[in-house]
């Protein structure tokens, strides 16, 4: 690369540095690495197994990642503010039991039960955010405690019983509609829509810019007039509501309310966020990256299972990829300085 092709830009932060070209900007984009990894994985599995490269299979992969994907959107918001949420899977499980039990036992009409589930999960998020910001406490500890609280409430309220015979509206998102030769699950569309919505909100609204500013430096954000308290609690609450939507997607996917669900989803959602190039130090990353991250996990699981490779190797590969992703993040941060 030579700098002669582009005139030196006046906005270059340091004199003497080459101005960033489009290609260079692309290469330092946090999502480029994950996208390349995803494409390579797709190429590899397309060659390795006949059943991978079909519309039906891609629809299947999206359907398999919609629950963790939706959790991971909320997780991304929180990690962008330099927080972390260990309680997301447990909060989702509690939400799903609330929705399933209320509707199945006829205490509430199905739509009201769903609304209550969203409110309950949002409430957990608001409580997390309030404890993190107002006392203040480290997010890791607050959400670790909340994980136990939500897990216990799930098992107490469900009496360890799987809730069956759910009314139709609860599983509606698990139904499919044909698109050409492929069946698409409605829930997949919900997840994709949520990713697009949050991607837009983060990149193109004042709120989104404030979230990044808060993650980069809470002090600077405060001095610039951002109401950090309201913003933090808002982010955790929004994440909670997203967990509630994930709870509904979970019910629609499995057709039951399962108190044992989601036990590893907190770590799986963090895995997706990290694989997608979002930095755990906050202020850097994107929800579209997370979507790529969640697809990487889904593609590996689906592809390896189609190849007939034992599940444990998927875990192994995921672990290696996470460490690689964090390494890339660190190196690119050093380069960015």
């Amino acid at each position, binding site marked *: 690369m030579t700098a002669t*092709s582009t005139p030196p830009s006046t906005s270059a932060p340091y004199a003497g540095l080459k101005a960033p*070209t*489009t*290609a260079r900007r*692309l*290469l330092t984009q946090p999502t480029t690495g994950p996208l*390349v990894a995803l*494409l*390579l994985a797709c*190429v*590899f599995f397309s*060659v*390795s*197994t006949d*059943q991978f490269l079909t519309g*039906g*299979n891609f629809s*299947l992969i999206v*359907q*398999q990642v919609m*629950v963790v994907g939706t959790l991971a959107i909320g997780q991304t918001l929180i990690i962008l503010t330099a927080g972390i949420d260990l309680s997301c899977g447990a909060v989702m499980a509690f939400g799903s039991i609330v929705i399933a039990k209320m509707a199945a036992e006829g205490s509430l009409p199905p739509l009201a039960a769903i609304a209550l589930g969203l409110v309950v999960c949002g409430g957990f998020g608001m409580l997390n955010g309030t404890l993190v910001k107002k006392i203040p406490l480290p997010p890791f500890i607050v959400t670790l405690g909340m994980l136990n609280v939500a897990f216990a409430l799930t098992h107490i309220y469900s*009496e*360890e*019983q*799987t809730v*069956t015979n759910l009314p139709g509206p609860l599983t509606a998102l698990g139904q499919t509609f044909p698109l050409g030769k492929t069946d698409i699950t409605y829930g997949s569309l919900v997840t994709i829509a949520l990713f697009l919505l949050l991607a837009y909100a983060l990149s193109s609204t004042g709120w989104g810019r404030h979230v990044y500013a808060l993650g980069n430096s809470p002090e600077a954000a405060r001095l610039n007039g951002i109401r950090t308290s309201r913003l933090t609690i808002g982010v955790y609450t929004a994440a909670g509501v997203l967990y509630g939507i994930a709870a509904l997607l*979970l019910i629609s*996917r*499995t*057709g*039951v309310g*399962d108190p*044992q*669900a*989601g*036990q*590893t989803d907190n770590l799986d959602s963090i895995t997706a966020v990290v694989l997608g190039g979002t930095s755990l130090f906050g202020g850097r990353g994107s929800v579209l990256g997370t979507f790529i991250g969640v697809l990487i996990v889904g593609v590996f*699981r*689906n592809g390896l*299972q*189609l*190849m*007939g*490779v*034992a*599940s*444990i*190797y998927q*875990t192994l590969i995921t672990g290696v990829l996470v460490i690689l992703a964090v390494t890339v993040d660190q190196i690119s941060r050093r380069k960015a300085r």
Partner: protein
Amino acid sequence: MSRTSRLPSSLLRAAACTGVAALALTACGSGSGSGSTSSGSGDVKVGLITKTDTNPFFVKMKEGAEKSAKAEGVTLMTAAGKFDGDNAGQVTAIENMVASGVKGILITPSDSKAIVPAIEKAKAKGVLVIALDTPTEPQSAVDALFATDNLKAGELIGEYAKAAMKGKTAKIAALDLAPGVSVGVQRHNGFLKGFGVTDKDVACAQDTGGDQSKGQTAMENCLQKEPGINVVYTINEPAALGAYTALKAKGREKDVLIVSVDGGCTGTQAVKDGKIAATSQQYPLKMAAEGVKAVVTYAKDGKKASGYTDTGVTLITDKAQDGVAAKDTAYGLENCWG
């Protein structure tokens, strides 16, 4: 802007390289195998989905299925949940196996009720679904069930314990599995039936998750609550060995009778060593082998296996009691799993 074209072309190059690498890998890999697909004729695929892939019981089941698949010349695919109770992981595995065109799926359901909708979807696509070890709820959700009669396994050790107590007043502790899990409930109820008592007569009942350290904690607490305990029913041998450790710490290991279910090799050895009085041995290899055979039959002539097949249970003890049929630990160690 012309610079932007550099990236896609390098991407393409990388992709092409990967393609070549993948081809090379698959070419090299076809001989070695990853240990989870047995090379068969490849036209018939059988899927095996276990609760986890770390529990020795399921490891053994997988081995049985692999052996059987090799003998029948079919391809075996395996998958498992991430933890005991991971229903979503099992649903995903069913979907992927159906997508890869399996003829039949053998599954040990992590959640008997929650897995049913996914099984029904697979059956609708013409896949034979057989439950191994654990029944679904309802049992009719699968085409067939190959499993131990857990009620009978419990009854055997209940009858044995009653005979061994020789009319002494029994103070019973029950170290159970977890609430609402059918396997645990059936063994527990079988034990009570065999002993001729009800839940009212159990001095202390605790959940252990079938885990040795939790079994130890549960036994310690039971002894705290009721020091006179002299009969301990345990859900499996890890829980039994945990109970033994707790009893030994109190110097009670000689005068308390521990009975269990499973018949794993470690557990059977513990029976031989006198730590556990008796155990009901079950046969996971047989479940898997029968399951694979059933899928092969279905692939060959379209005949679906149906109903419940009891894969058998044997009481293993070196201190046989009159009127209770049993085999000694030599037999037990020959036929144990794990």
